[in-house]
């Protein structure tokens, strides 16, 4: 991340449109990216963390977007990942609609409170239609600007 505060969100964290058919494949792709970015070693463990969270309650919060997330010691720094899905994937969402956009948060336990605060403002932003609109329809650049803006603490 530009501000160099040890939290990870770079253009590399945007996976673009990934070709997947199931929720599990989504998790595998996200986890693989976390490993290739060097913030995690065990992709399998991350997939499992996502799954466990998903069993408690779906992270699909309606409108075709989901926020799979986990508090996990399998990552070294707080990380945000973003992907669009090549086709709608069943997610057991609260509005029963399949998911085509995924914004994911991975947080190690003991993350510093400034990071947690920024991540919480990202979660809050998801309740604002204009922000979600960018995530759903924007170009990769627009998405990057939007998320990075929130995580840099510059958001309105």
């Amino acid at each position: 991340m530009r501000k160099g505060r040890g939290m990870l969100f770079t253009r590399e964290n945007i996976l673009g449109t990934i070709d997947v058919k199931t929720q599990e494949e989504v998790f595998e792709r996200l986890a693989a990216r976390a490993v290739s970015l060097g913030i995690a070693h065990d992709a399998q463990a991350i997939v499992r963390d996502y799954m466990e969270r998903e069993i408690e309650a779906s992270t699909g919060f309606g409108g075709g977007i989901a926020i799979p997330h986990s508090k996990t010691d399998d990552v070294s720094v707080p990380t945000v990942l973003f992907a669009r899905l090549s086709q709608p994937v069943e997610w057991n969402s609260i509005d029963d609609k399949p998911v085509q956009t995924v914004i994911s948060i991975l947080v190690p336990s003991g993350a510093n409170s400034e990071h947690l605060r920024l991540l919480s403002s990202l979660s809050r932003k998801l309740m604002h239609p204009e922000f979600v609109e960018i995530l759903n329809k924007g170009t990769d650049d627009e998405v990057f600007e939007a998320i990075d803006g929130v995580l840099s603490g510059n958001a309105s």
Partner: protein
Amino acid sequence: MSKSIVAVTNCPAGIAHTYMVAEAIKTKGEALGYEVHVETQGANGVENQLTKDEIKDADYVILALGKGMDEDDRVRFDGKKVIELPVSEALKNIDSVMGNLEGEAKPYRATSVDLGGRNGTGAVTGFMNHLMAGVSAALPFVIGGGLLMAIGSIMIQFGAPNIEPADGQVASIAWVLNTIGSLGFSFMVPVMGAWIAQSIGGKPALAPAFICSYLANSSSLLGTQTGAGFIGAVIIGILVGYFANTLRKIQLPKNIHGLMGFLIIPFVSLLVFALLTYYFIGPIAAALMNGLVVMLSSIPEGAKLAGAFLVGAMLAFDMGGPVNKAAWFFSFSLVASGVYDWYGIVGVVTILPPMAAAIATWIRPSLFTEGERDAAVPALIVGATVATEPAIPYALAAPLPMISANVIAGGVAGAISMALGVQRIAPGIGIFDPLLGLISPAWAYYIAVAVGLVLNVALIIIFKSIWLKRQAEKAQQAA
């Protein structure tokens, strides 16, 4: 002045939903013209903690919870109009909930159910929490059922017919009330097991524990002499809860992992524990329960009174702490097996400490601080009807004399209660229970309470006078 809302949100990970729902409540509420304060209990700890004034001024309290809220935290919303819902539900139905706050809200009373005094010192451990989750779910079944039965029995006592439905016979209303009331008693055991399991292992553990606890309590299905009652429900609730937690850790092949929560855990737990319950747990727990009931009914009178003294003393000892809970749990668990005199002791003893403390402040005001005297009226009223807690401040101010007095008086009142055969079938509103038919015989109950109270007040005055004198002497020596 605009109306205002306070809310608390939390979720298991404390990363996403806590904040999403907080934001949704805030935006939506402000759009509707409310002043909104939202406390988030997330991975970053408690943020925007609600102040006393914010809570006091709030017209509504919204609790959107993904990991529950314990009593100690909840107490601050006593007397407010509270809307409580799961955090996922809040996200889904925020518009309809916010649009109909008055309709969704329920007045919340912090100590609505008398558990023989709730924990005031945070001493209840995690394990006890699971048990109490089961108890608090099961209690309304006996309260509702017990009151229906009480009404039915009173009607019969006053000459109403008690007629079962049969060919050409319509059941009488007294019979209907009695029978439906007794359903409450038969459901409380499986509900208890189910909620213990859910408290430990989450929702997937609920159904298997419910079914198995029901099975364990059905002597006709098991072919045993008695049902396993609460012992069965506790054992099964705990085992199923932890079993579900273990299952959840298993790595399943892809694509079927999503079935874990609603298919695999309930099914596998049920299969395993239904068989275990039928062949082992049920008969063993039933034998234990039977043994306990037989032992309690066959022990010599002297030993029974000693036991009653012990239970009474334990109930009075820590006013809702672990010792009280243990004695309470023992007494209450016998209710499911039709043994009511130990629970009668609870009815007598749990109202004594706060009432005695309040009365003592009027007889000997000089022994108490101004704050203690001011609190006497509410302590007496709450103590006599709802909970033992109001005794706690008096005990904390002078632990040795107050607790000694409470314990001795509690023990004696417990023994008297047992000797006179006081029976309590369900918790109600304390000192008025005999009038509701929940405690009988009424005369015996009031004798036990009266003797206990006189003794308790006398001991408080004696012990505290001595104690205060010693404190004064010590202070002099030090000076």
